[in-house]
């Protein structure tokens, strides 16, 4: 479990990026962090693996206070995939890039090889294994960055804007992939502006604004709330907006995904006069 109590963080320039944040994230949980640019989302996730240490309050990972742990030791448990993959790469081939973490953690060669092939396959990257990571498209780079963290199988996986540059099929694959990790008892935290992706995944949603948590609850409640959507600089998923417009026909207000909406509409259409 990741436990955050009374967390505040002030950057050296005096900006208070997080203010009294309280949050518990359990094993097997899927959580989306949303909110305006500059709300503190990235600052918050950097506390999960000790890249940043609290100015006040406490962050514990599996009961251990991050102030007393190095990033290297926390990284085994908490894998962070950053928004901009270029900041993460430094190897000459995709294969080396993905192997790097495993080598560093001292796994034997034959295991590394096996594991790397496995994640290359999982993320549809096999044909790029010998390419330079810098030569790939934006969407492909994101997948290499994810693969390089997944390789060492961290218990907590934190993804900053994973859907940028991904097409609909890749997003669908990412969604299935996250669900698979969750069923294995892993915990996945996604930072995302992609309202439609979140509406389809239906995780627990935490909304940050100006360094504070302003809402915390299931996606269908959070994303269909005009008040939260407004305060969080979000926009409502198209389906939620549609359901609101059709309220007088008795459509449920908390439907946010296209397949449920389709069923609801069919039900009403087939009733007949």
């Amino acid at each position: 479990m990741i436990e955050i109590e009374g967390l505040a963080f002030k950057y050296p320039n005096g900006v208070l990026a997080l203010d009294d944040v309280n949050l518990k994230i359990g094993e097997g949980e899927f959580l989306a962090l949303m909110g305006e640019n500059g709300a503190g989302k990235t600052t918050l996730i950097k506390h999960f693996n000790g890249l940043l240490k609290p100015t006040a309050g406490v962050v514990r990972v599996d009961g251990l206070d991050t102030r007393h742990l190095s990033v290297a030791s926390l990284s085994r448990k908490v894998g962070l995939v950053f928004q901009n993959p270029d900041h993460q790469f430094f190897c000459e081939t995709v294969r080396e890039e993905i192997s790097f973490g495993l080598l560093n953690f001292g796994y034997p060669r034959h295991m590394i090889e096996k594991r790397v092939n496995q994640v290359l396959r999982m993320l549809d990257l096999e044909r790029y294994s010998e390419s330079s990571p810098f030569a790939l498209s934006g969407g492909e780079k994101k997948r290499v960055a994810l693969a390089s963290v997944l390789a060492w199988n961290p218990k907590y996986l934190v993804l900053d804007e994973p859907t940028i540059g991904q097409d609909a099929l890749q997003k669908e694959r990412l969604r299935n992939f996250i669900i698979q990790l969750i069923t294995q008892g892993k915990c996945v935290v996604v930072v995302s502006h992609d309202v439609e992706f979140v509406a389809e995944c239906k995780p627990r949603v935490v909304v940050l604004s100006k360094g504070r948590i302003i809402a915390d609850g299931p996606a269908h409640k959070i994303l269909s709330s005009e008040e939260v959507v407004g305060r969080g600089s979000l926009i409502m998923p198209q389906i939620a907006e549609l359901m609101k417009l059709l309220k007088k026909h008795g459509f449920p207000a908390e439907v946010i995904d296209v397949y449920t909406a389709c069923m609801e509409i069919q039900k009403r259409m087939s009733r007949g006069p």
Partner: protein
Amino acid sequence: MGGLAVRVDGLSFTYAGSPFPALREVSLKIERGEFIIITGPSGCGKSTLCRCLNGLIPHFYPGKMEGNVEVFGMNTRFYTPKHLARFVGLVFQNPENQLFSLSVEGDVAFGPENLGFPREETVKRVEEALSLMGLKEVRDRAPYELSGGQQQRAAIASILAMRPEMVVLDEPTSFLDPRSSLDIIEAISFLNRRLGITVVLVEHRLDIASRFADKIYILDEGRIVDEGPPHQVYGRRETLLLGVGVPRISLLFQLLRERGIPVKEIPLTVKEGAEKLEAFLVDRN
């Protein structure tokens, strides 16, 4: 003003060192004043096509180019990106990569200064660009002090100061929160409608932008595989199978159509969709 903004003829491009071409025999025509969306699965060649529209390819990216690209009648083989910059402005995903001055004003002035305009002309253009993008109040601020949405506005303003005939935007809202994304797309649509600037928008997230587009092109493995007005393209099953992220409202109507509900035209906005459903439901009851 009529005429062609872009004519691409049999364009193929292979990056140096890459085993396969990024673009294969692409041909297309964009009229002046049109709002075009280019989309397709990741790695399909969208960004490469953008780089061909302002001469970055073939002038800065080494590789093998076949075919021709003409922008406002200028063949990009013979005109450099510097020359083309007066006609075509390119806006990238991440505004941080495009802004480097200590003030917004400085960034916006950079283009016209660099093109060698006299001071009065530069001042005039900077004022115009700042006011078009609603940045007058933050002109003295450093770009890194601005919100993501304001940064992207500043990046667009710095392009507008060169008074381009066309802007090419490569996923300009990826890094922005949903509210700011909507603002940016609306600002771009304003430039298109009010100033007649031709817009080429490369996007994965089609939910916001589709309603503003005259035409959408779908690229797959470097080829154009479909083109047409969005409501037609989104109504085709193949579009979904390719991995195009059609707006949820359009997808919903496609699903309803497959389930035997007689949907004539695929809507692009929630409002349109709600009206169609209202009509169906009233018919029933």
